């Protein structure tokens, strides 16, 4: 009774801070000396509350020191001190913090509150930290409350709200207060108001607070619905839940006997074998379920085994009971408001997710575009199938890795790696064109095979040099992190950088092909090498340069891809099929087609992944199937060349 009274008083005191300056902290401690010396969780609570409510600034110091085992009692006169261990005893300060000399170890009792009491103290301290003069401490307190909210935090938080001066912190406190209110307040009107007060907020913390309010459990009941239950919906067996699930609910609630499992029936039958027969049925005939049921029923009738539910009994039991989904939250008004709020949020979040998905799709598309743009030159313009294109991407990525071994400044190393990767793969491409591809221009299928042979060899050489484990290619720090629009929509800076790089390549390609002498000559040689040669263009040289260029761009793409993917010898082969698909779907010989193809494939893959998020393998499968079908209807891709340029 006394405790109840005390806690009522305390609640009043906390609710009206500043009005009840009854006692100083020292007085309270002195009055409860025995309790403070040997505290128990149950009895000390009023004292701590009293301290917290005293309004005495010393109280915060005392509580903090107490929790940290920094409070001591002098045995001689029972005075409390803030104590600190020294080499030969204790350094003492009185409770206001003024020096109070030293004491020998034996003169002081160190107060050691147990974990439960420390928890109470910590809660009481919340209100002090919430109104701490240092804004950083107040912000930290808010973060810690938000991470692990408790009902006990609500009152101190409200109390500190009035005195908050920093507008940003005040807004934070206000939001947190409403989040706590909607979860912990006892007044349903206040909770509904808190829920509705959030309006169009999309915060994850709000959803995390609202979702538990709508948690449901399934219950079975006989006759009418149990009173006081906040029913989400009534379940009809057969429509909303299967008969088996319904019966399991009954069994779990102890309203029906468990159904006999096959194993239990088997064990029961085995235990009752008499003279090679069970319940009059010979053992040899027990090879069907019907015979086993017959035998079990006979045993049941004889009372040898416990009764078990048959199918008919199960159906009857299910029909005799009602089933419902019931909210764990008893207040119907609150659940209705929470449901309405969550529905509104879900709609907005859906829109945001679509936007996020679109961003994802664009970034995936730019990766595919980057991987495919070199192919758009070698395959699209020159019609040379280069199966080793993926290995050029890999070479670029490994070049980046090797450069980082020598240059530890990541920004600088990327700046060095990009042109170096271009140079390396350009040289490899030129060498390959001169040595192999030049001899096979008239035999495209064999180009495919020969370049594939090179691809096998390059992959294995990379494996021999760098090993099979993934090598890191680290992005500079300024590419870390993500551009966050809100809790739903965000995109990492690396992906933005890749998008920008892809766009730069697009512009570069357009400029090169349409505005330079080299581009003019490339187009001339592609259309008609003989005529181009008679105009003074050297087709051999142009073919070599074009192929080198396509390979070089693959190298740069390799550095970019290596920044977010693992650099292994299989890096290239992961992209080669998709790259070819991009070029083929887009339409050979047209850079805009490649762009369209990359966007189609990127969007498609992300879309399918969204429909079936658990399974990216399925997404790739369906995407390839879609592409195969797509080629049925547009065999020449999205943007098909017409007329003479289309060749064959």
């Amino acid at each position, binding site marked *: 009774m006394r405790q109840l009274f005390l806690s009522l008083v305390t609640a009043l005191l906390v609710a009206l801070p500043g009005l009840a300056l009854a006692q100083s902290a020292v007085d309270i401690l002195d009055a409860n000396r025995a309790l403070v010396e040997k505290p128990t969780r149950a009895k000390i609570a009023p004292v701590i509350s009293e301290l917290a409510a005293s309004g005495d600034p010393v109280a915060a110091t005392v509580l903090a020191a107490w929790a940290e085992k920094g409070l001591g009692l002098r045995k001689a006169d029972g005075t409390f001190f803030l104590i600190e261990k020294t080499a030969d005893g204790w350094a003492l300060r009185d409770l206001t913090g003024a020096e109070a000399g030293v004491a020998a170890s034996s003169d002081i009792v160190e107060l050691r509150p147990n974990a439960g009491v420390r928890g109470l103290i910590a809660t009481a301290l919340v209100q002090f930290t919430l109104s701490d003069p240092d804004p950083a401490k107040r912000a930290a307190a808010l973060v810690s409350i938000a991470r692990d909210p408790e009902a006990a935090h609500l009152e101190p938080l409200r109390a500190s709200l009035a005195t908050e001066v920093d507008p940003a912190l005040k807004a934070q406190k206000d939001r947190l207060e409403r989040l706590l209110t909607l979860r912990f307040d006892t007044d349903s009107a206040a909770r509904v108001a808190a829920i509705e007060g959030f309006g169009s907020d999309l915060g994850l913390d709000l959803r995390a607070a609202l979702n538990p309010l709508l948690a449901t459990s399934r219950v079975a009941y006989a006759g009418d619905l149990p009173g006081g239950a906040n029913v989400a919906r009534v379940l009809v067996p057969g429509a909303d839940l299967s008969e088996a699930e319904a019966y399991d609910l009954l069994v779990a609630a102890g309203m029906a006997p468990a159904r006999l499992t096959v194993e239990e029936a088997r064990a029961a039958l085995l235990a009752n074998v008499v003279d090679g027969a069970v319940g009059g049925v010979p053992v040899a005939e027990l090879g069907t379920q019907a015979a086993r049921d017959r035998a079990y029923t006979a045993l049941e009738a004889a009372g040898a085994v416990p009764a078990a539910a048959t199918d008919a009994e199960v159906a009857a039991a299910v029909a005799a009971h009602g089933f419902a989904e019931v909210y764990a939250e008893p207040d119907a008004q609150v659940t209705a408001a929470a449901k309405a709020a969550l529905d509104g949020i879900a709609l907005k979040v859906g829109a945001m997710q679509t936007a996020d998905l679109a961003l994802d799709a664009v970034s995936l598309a730019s990766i595919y575009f980057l991987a495919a743009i070199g192919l758009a030159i070698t395959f699209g313009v020159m019609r040379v199938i280069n199966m080793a294109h993926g290995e050029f991407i890999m070479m670029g990525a490994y070049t980046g890795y090797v450069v980082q071994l020598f240059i530890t400044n990541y920004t600088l190393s990327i700046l060095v790696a990009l042109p170096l990767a271009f140079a390396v793969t350009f040289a490899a491409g030129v060498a390959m064109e001169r040595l192999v591809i030049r001899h096979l221009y008239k035999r495209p299928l064999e180009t495919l095979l020969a370049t594939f042979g*090179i691809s096998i060899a*390059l992959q294995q050489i990379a494996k021999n040099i760098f090993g099979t484990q993934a090598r890191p290619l680290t992005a500079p720090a300024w590419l870390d992190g993500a551009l966050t629009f809100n809790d739903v929509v965000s995109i990492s800076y690396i992906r933005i950088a890749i998008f920008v790089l892809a766009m730069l390549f697009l512009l570069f390609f357009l400029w090169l092909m349409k505005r330079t002498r080299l581009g003019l000559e490339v187009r001339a040689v592609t259309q008609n090498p003989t005529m181009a040669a008679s105009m003074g263009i050297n087709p051999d040289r142009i073919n070599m340069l074009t192929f080198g260029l396509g390979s070089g761009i693959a190298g740069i793409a390799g550095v970019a891809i290596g920044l977010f993917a693992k650099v292994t010898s299989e890096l290239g082969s992961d992209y080669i099929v998709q790259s070819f698909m991009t070029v083929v779907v887009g339409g050979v010989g047209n850079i805009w087609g490649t762009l369209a193809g990359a966007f189609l494939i990127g969007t498609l893959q992300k879309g399918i992944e969204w429909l079936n998020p658990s*399974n990216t393998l399925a997404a*790739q*499968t369906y995407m390839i199937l879609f592409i195969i079908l797509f080629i049925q209807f547009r065999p020449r891709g999205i943007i098909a060349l017409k007329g003479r340029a289309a060749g064959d």
Partner: protein
Amino acid sequence: MTRQSFTERSFLAKNPSVLWFILILAVFTLGVTVLSEAYGVAFLSTSFVKTLGKTLCLCLVALAMDLIWGYAGILSLGHMAFFALGGYMLGMWLMYARTEEIVVAALAQGGLPATPEEVRQGIAVQIFGVVGASELPAIWAFAHSFWAQMALVVLVPGGLALVFGWLAFRSRVTGVYLSILTQAMTLALALYLFQNDSGLRGNNGLSGLQNLPGLSDASQDAVSMWFFWGSALALGLGYVLLSWVVSGKFGSVIRAIRDDEQRVRFLGYSVEGYKLFVFTLTAVIAAIAGALYYPQAGIINPAELAPIASIYLAVWVAIGGRGRLYGAVIGAAFVSLLSSWFTGGRAPSVPLGFYTVNWVDWWLVLLGLSFVLVTLFAPKGIGGLFDLWQGLRGPDRKGAPLGPDDGALMEKEARE
């Protein structure tokens, strides 16, 4: 002896290579049998007999590849997918029937005769417990029946090839585009099978296929020989069948399609029909080869369908010499045996002083580069060596026309 006209000569007379091939295959089979552990002097280990048996299956699928690529000019990068599908179809029966035996035996120990439901449940848990399922998927509906699964070995890959080929050829996808498309099909199939809910145990694949249901007391020594004989028989039959297919008018048409598809179409032939037939026929042959291969390998998983496998198939045929059936067989046998020798770690390392060439690491480099060299300098492959020998003898024409392939030779002679 009267001079026979060319067209009246018998099939074997026109194709002396068939007799030679059958002869060599028969001698080889006999030799392996005599040297085997089960039926001979135990000179060859059982695992080596299995390797030889598997090699024969690879030769069979290489024959199919040669027909579609060497004769019809369609570079399919999907035939190892049909090969693996055939293996999966037979593997389903092997695994189901074998598991059924084990489950029935285990349940019989329980004292009561097992009910059909218990048996089915036991099999499902045994097979699919590893992917966390306890129900047999619908595609296993026929797995209990040997004959049904045998039919599926032909029907599933054949049906897939028919549908895919119809779609691809109908829209006139040719050349490298078709190659890339078939590669995409293979990749899609492999990715699909990698999923656990594909119903074929995801990346675990099917295992324990070397144990024949109902023959648990037959030793692996004997079983390996049975499969070896089966593979040799299939290869022999396949060789005769394909020789017959390519020797007649049909063969001439598909070679013409390879050389100039447009012209054949203008001559009134249904190019798409011919291609579709060849594509489906070769897919079925590949599937049968796979159904013989995987019981000898003992395990099949989706990695077998990786696009790289189909490309290796093309490599074998190219190195052996495409456009001639024995070339494909030689290439597959030579390269796959050499490959297992090199990657098996038995090839001696080559110390270069500053670096030791370890063939396990460098074999693929050698293979890739020699493949490039063959493509560049010896497009006829190993089979081309036989031409040197043929050239020494002079053509045995007996005044008959030379047939479609050697037309150019006749023109050349006429000019001389």
